[in-house]
Every structure is written in C-alpha cells, then in structure tokens.
C-alpha cells in the first residue's frame, strides 16, 4: 500500500513544537528580554550593559527593568549612567505592527559616573586621540618653575656697575674740561691790575684835550683786554653749568641704579601665567567634566545611542547580526516612540525630575523634536536650578539646543585634585552657573559660565611649584570660569578659561618675592655701597663746580664793573675844575 504524502502525526509534533516555543518564551520571557536588552544596549553604548532584573506584565502590557548599569567606554571601571528602576507602559497594538510605542516611561534613581563593582567590557574603543588628550592633562606636565634669586641674578644684566663706570668717565671728562676752561680765567692780581690801571687812566692831572684823547685810547685798549677775560669767565661758567648738569644727572643715575637693578630682578619674578599650562583645566577639569556629564546628559548619553540606533556607520556591524533597514514612509508613525518620560536624577541625595516628551530616533516621521525640562528649586544643595532643551535627529546628525541656570549651589568638601603633585579640595563655596549649548550636525558649540564665590580652598603641593600653587590657591576668594564646549557630540571637548592663571601668576610672584626679599635687600646694600664711593667723588665735584661757579660769577661782576668805567666824565670834571679855578 502506497503511503500518503501527508504525515498527520507531524502536525501534532509541530503543534507540540510551537507550544514548547511559546512555553519557553512565556517562562523565560524576562530572561530573554534581559539578555536582548543587555546585548542591544551594550552594542549601542559601545560597552557592557548590565541589567539586574526584568519583569513584565501582560495586562496592561508593561515592562520594568531594574538595576541598569551602563559602562563608560572611556572609563570601563565606571558606569556612565546607572538607573535604579525603569518602568514603561507599552502599546500592544503597535507592538503587533512592529512598532514600540511607550506612553509613559518612568526612571528613578538615575546617577551618572558611578564606580562599577568590576570593570565593564568595552566593545567599541574610544577615539585614541581623545584618550591621549585626556591623559596629557597632568600636573606633571607643568613646565613652569619657580626661579631662585641667584638664578635670576645670574641672568639679569645688572646695570649699577655700568652706571658707576659711566659716572666715573663723565666725572673725569667734566673735570678735565672745566679745569681747561679754568686756566683761561683772569687771576685776582690781574683784575687788581686792571683796577689800578683804570684808576691811573681816569684819575690824576689832566694836561689838556690831547691828554684826554691819549687816556681814552689807553682805556679802550684796557677794556679790550678786560672783555677778553670776561669772555673767558663766561666760557668757564658755561662749562661749569654744563658739568653741573652732567654731574647732577650722574648723581641721580647713581642714586637710582641699585633700586633699578632690584626692580629688574623683581620683574624676572613676575609670572603671567603662560607657563602654568592652564591650571584651571588641571584643577577643575575632572570635576567640570563630571558636572558636564549631567549638563550634557541628553547629548552624551541619549543622543549617541539614538544616533547609533539609526546609523550602522557609527557601530561596527557584528558578524552574523546583519542590519535592519527601515522602509517606513514619511507619513508613518515612528517605529520607536516614548511619548512621555520622567527621569529622577540623583545628585548628592537631591532628586531632580526631568520631564521628557517624544523620545524617538525618527523625528522626521514625528515632525517634532524631543524636548526636556528639569527644574529643582530650594533644594538642600542649591537655591534654584532649571534646564531645558530640545533635540532632533536629522539625516546629517543631531540638531539640538539647551540652556540652564543654576544659582546658589553649595559646595562642601569637594575634592578637586588628588594627584601626587597637588591635592586640592574646596572646603566651601557658593556656585552659580549658566550656559547654552547648541548642536548642529553632531557638532557642539556652547559656553558655560561658572562663578565660585566665597571660596575656601585647601591645597597641598609636593614640589616647589605645586606648593607655591597650593599656597596661592588657599588665598583665592573668587573664581570665574568660562567653559567652552565644542567637539563632536560623542566626544565633547571642554576648554576652560578663567582668571585663575593670572591670579596664580600674581600670587606666585608675591610668594616668590616674599622668599627673595632678604636676599634682594643684601644685593641692594652691596650695590649701594659700590655706588656710594663714586657718588662721593661726584658730589665733591658738584660742590667744587658750585663754588667755582660762584667765584667766577664774582669775577664776572668785577670785570663788568670795570668795563663800565668812563673816561669822558672824569676828564670833564677835571677840565671844569681847571677852568673855574679848582685844583
């Protein structure tokens, strides 16, 4: 008998097989979802994702995921995000149509940058350049050094010696020139002789008009000689005046030389902060990056994951897994949409509620961006905080904007740096911050202001420089930091600008000067002693010059008086006496 082509018992086996599949799925659904989520999220994240527990409920269809740990690929010993519990209501009708529509997602106990119990596995290695840039940020790289007084003195061109040499040369030259002019001066005897001759010419018996004419001629000749001597006196006085000016200037330069040299040494101590290699970044970089993980959470965490979910280029396809291509038309609803979500972030014991709307990776289908708002006023940690933003994925990448304000955040006992070179800790401070971040085609562009008031810093350094920095940090009262946010959305770069480097430069200068004061005083005393020898000579010359000036002034007056002598009047008188019977 020919057997039938249909094997009816096979149908029963098939039914049994299907039932077995359903039963296994039913029994192990939570485990299957857990493994699937860990695998999918891990792939999107680029590093291991662990889920502690998954629970589902059929009516209404909902899913609860607890203890989610998302490893940070840059630091696998840390979780970039940790979620206490997430529960979602899922639309079953949409699920049948292959779409995931979650009406409400609630996440509690969200924390960022938490240490893991064991290092997480990294699937996609972060950019090496990024890691290198991070590693370069080290106190060891500080190139600045604090110079000693001796080092500086050896480098500084001290000018006191030169000034002394110049003064000596000028002294000799002026003395020589003045003395040369002095030799041409008429002596006292010569002046007396002039007086006597004038007396003889202008006095005595007049013998007539011929005698008067002879006397006049003799007087003119004498005056000629007197004028020549007066010219010599005048030249001498000019020389003395010039020498006095030079000597006075030399004295002034000599007196100032030690002080100028000390100022020159001091100027070598002054530090403009350029060698400090951005202490702001070194000191506050790690903490600012940690804070930025909260501020940029939407971009750093959700953005890349959404981007990766829709773009195979950012995630290396795993062999054998293939790729799902979406053929949703422009009018179709998004394949994945969380209409509303509430996430409770834990920041130092304070809960920040963030309300999200329209989380999807297909904003073009939804026609709306993902929006989020966070507000937490009068908490234990700050007086006011609010943050809002929106984000959408386009064909060219992520477009987004975000702004925030934080007022009166109280920082207490906050570790800043714990390196072997320098340990620093904020004992207390008040912090205000505001900022805006824009994202265009995955590129970040933003600026954040951080103002720290009433700063009380504790710091300790191990090297001479870091000890000086630590000393300077302790004196800081206020610090304004501008953080420039840039780079790619998946690897944001933060750049810090503040007046800290300049403040530190000034404070380090003061600190270095304090140490150098005693030594500088000794250097000044040595220089002053050297100057005082030369100064004595210069002042002696100046006194002589003054005396010579006065003496030559007298001579000049005497000669001037002699030049005023007139023969005509005396002769007239004599002649009048003879005519009218006088002597």
């Amino acid at each position, binding site marked *: 008998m020919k057997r039938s082509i249909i094997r009816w018992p096979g149908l029963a086996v098939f039914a049994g097989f299907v039932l077995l599949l359903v039963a296994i799925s039913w029994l192990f659904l939570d485990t299957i979802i857990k493994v699937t989520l860990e695998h999918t999220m891990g792939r999107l994240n680029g590093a291991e994702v662990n889920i502690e527990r998954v629970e589902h409920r059929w009516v209404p269809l909902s899913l609860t995921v607890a203890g989610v740990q998302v490893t940070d690929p840059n630091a696998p010993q840390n979780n970039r995000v940790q979620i206490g519990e997430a529960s979602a209501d899922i639309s079953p009708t949409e699920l049948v149509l292959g779409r995931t529509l979650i009406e409400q997602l609630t996440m509690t106990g969200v924390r960022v940058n938490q240490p893991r119990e064991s290092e997480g596995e990294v699937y996609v290695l972060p950019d090496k350049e990024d890691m290198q840039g991070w590693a370069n940020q080290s106190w060891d790289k500080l190139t600045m050094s604090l110079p000693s007084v001796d080092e500086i003195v050896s480098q500084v061109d001290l000018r006191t010696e030169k000034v002394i040499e110049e003064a000596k040369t000028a002294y000799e030259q002026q003395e020589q020139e003045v003395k040369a002019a002095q030799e041409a001066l008429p002596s006292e005897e010569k002046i007396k002789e002039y007086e006597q001759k004038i007396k003889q010419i202008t006095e005595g018996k007049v013998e007539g008009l011929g005698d008067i004419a002879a006397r006049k001629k003799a007087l003119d000749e004498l005056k000629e000689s007197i004028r020549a001597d007066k010219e010599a006196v005048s030249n001498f006085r000019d020389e003395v005046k010039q020498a006095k000016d030079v000597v006075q200037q030399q004295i002034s330069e000599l007196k100032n030389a030690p002080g100028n040299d000390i100022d020159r040494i001091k100027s070598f101590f002054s530090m403009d902060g350029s060698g400090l290699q951005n202490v702001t970044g070194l000191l506050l970089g790690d903490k600012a990056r940690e804070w930025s993980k909260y501020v940029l959470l939407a971009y750093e965490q959700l953005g890349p994951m959404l981007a990766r979910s829709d773009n195979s280029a950012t995630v290396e*396809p795993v062999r054998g897994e293939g*790729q799902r291509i979406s053929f949703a038309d422009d009018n*179709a609803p998004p394949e994945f949409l969380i209409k509303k979500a509430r996430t409770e972030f834990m920041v130092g014991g304070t809960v920040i509620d963030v309300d999200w709307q329209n989380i999807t990776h297909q904003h073009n289908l939804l026609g709306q961006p993902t929006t989020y708002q966070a507000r937490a006023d009068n908490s234990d940690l700050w007086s006011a905080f609010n943050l809002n933003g929106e984000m959408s994925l386009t064909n060219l990448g992520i477009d987004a904007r975000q702004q925030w304000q934080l007022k009166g955040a109280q920082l207490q006992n906050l570790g800043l740096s714990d390196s072997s070179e320098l340990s620093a800790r904020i004992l207390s401070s008040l912090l205000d911050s505001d900022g805006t971040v824009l994202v265009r085609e995955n590129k970040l562009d933003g600026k954040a202001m951080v103002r720290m008031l009433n700063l009380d810093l504790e710091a300790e350094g191990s090297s001479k420089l870091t000890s000086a920095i630590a000393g300077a940090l302790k004196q800081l009262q206020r610090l304004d930091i501008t953080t420039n946010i840039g780079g790619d959305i998946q690897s944001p770069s933060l750049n810090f600008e503040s007046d800290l480097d300049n403040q530190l430069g000034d404070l380090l200068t003061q600190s270095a000067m304090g140490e150098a004061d005693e030594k500088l005083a000794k250097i000044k005393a040595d220089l002053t002693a050297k100057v005082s020898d030369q100064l004595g000579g210069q002042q002696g010359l100046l006194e002589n010059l003054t005396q010579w000036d006065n003496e030559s002034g007298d001579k000049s007056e005497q000669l001037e008086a002699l030049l005023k002598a007139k023969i005509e009047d005396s002769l007239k008188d004599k002649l009048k006496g003879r005519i009218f019977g006088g002597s």
Partner: protein
Amino acid sequence: MLTILAKLLKALNSETSAWALALAVVLGMFIGITPLWRIHNLIIILAALIFRVNLSLFIVSFGVFSGIAYLLDPWLHSLGLSLLEASSWQGIYEAMYATALGRLSMFNHTITMGSFVIALIAAPIVAAISYWVIANYRKRIQAKIMKLRVVQVIRGSRFWQIYTDLRG
C-alpha cells in the same frame, strides 16, 4: 549522532523516493542558511513535519548548511543590503513594511533577505544535485560500498546493530 547517521543510511538504502530525500535536503538548506528565528522557518518546519520528508536528512542538511551560512555571513549581508537598497524595489518594500506580516517576516533584515534569496536560487540546484547523488548512490555505490572491508568491520559494530534495529 550514531542514530542519526544510521537513520540517514537507512533512508538512503530504503525504498523512499530520491526526490523526497532531495526535498529534505532543500528544506534543511532553507532553515540552515537563513537565520533560525524567522517566521518562514516555522513554515518550513511545519512542511518538513507534515509532509513525508525524511527528518534525518533534513536535520543533517540543516547542520551542514548552517556551517556554510556562517562562512557566507558577510557576503549574505552585502547581498541583502544591495537588494534592500535597490531603488526599483523600494515601493514593494515599503508596502510590505507597512503590513504586520511583512514586519514579522523580517524581510528588511539584510542577512535574512540575502540568505533567503540565495536559498530560493539554490533550491532547484540543490534538489537536482541531491537527487543525482542519491540516485547514483543507490545504483552504483551502494553495492560496492557493502563489499568494502571497512564496511564489513562496521557491520560487526554497535553502529550496525542500531542500523539493523531501525530497519526492523
């Protein structure tokens, strides 16, 4: 394992039609070469169970073609991707994607698409080759093999005992 091998030999040496055995190889190829958790594989399993298909050959074929599929994965992905990106087919894909059945079939998955198309193309070839091999085995090889010394040794082994038990 020995049981499956024995069953395989039994099938080859039985009166079962060579085309029926070739169909088992083809169905095994479909399930082996395409990703396992797909709706079409459920239909293939149903077909293998409900029709009088030799299950041993079906399982062996599944195993062999799973290995081949693993080797061809990257190529199947590329093929599927190029098929799914073919502009002239976009309208059909969009229409399929809009239906629940289309989504369930996971046709939009690159390896699924690539491997399914390859399985479809290979099906008549694999069927013909399988038929030819089985027919020639029965006609020429079976008798010669039975005379080989190694087969004589096997016939005295536990494996032969299983084989004969199966034959009844």
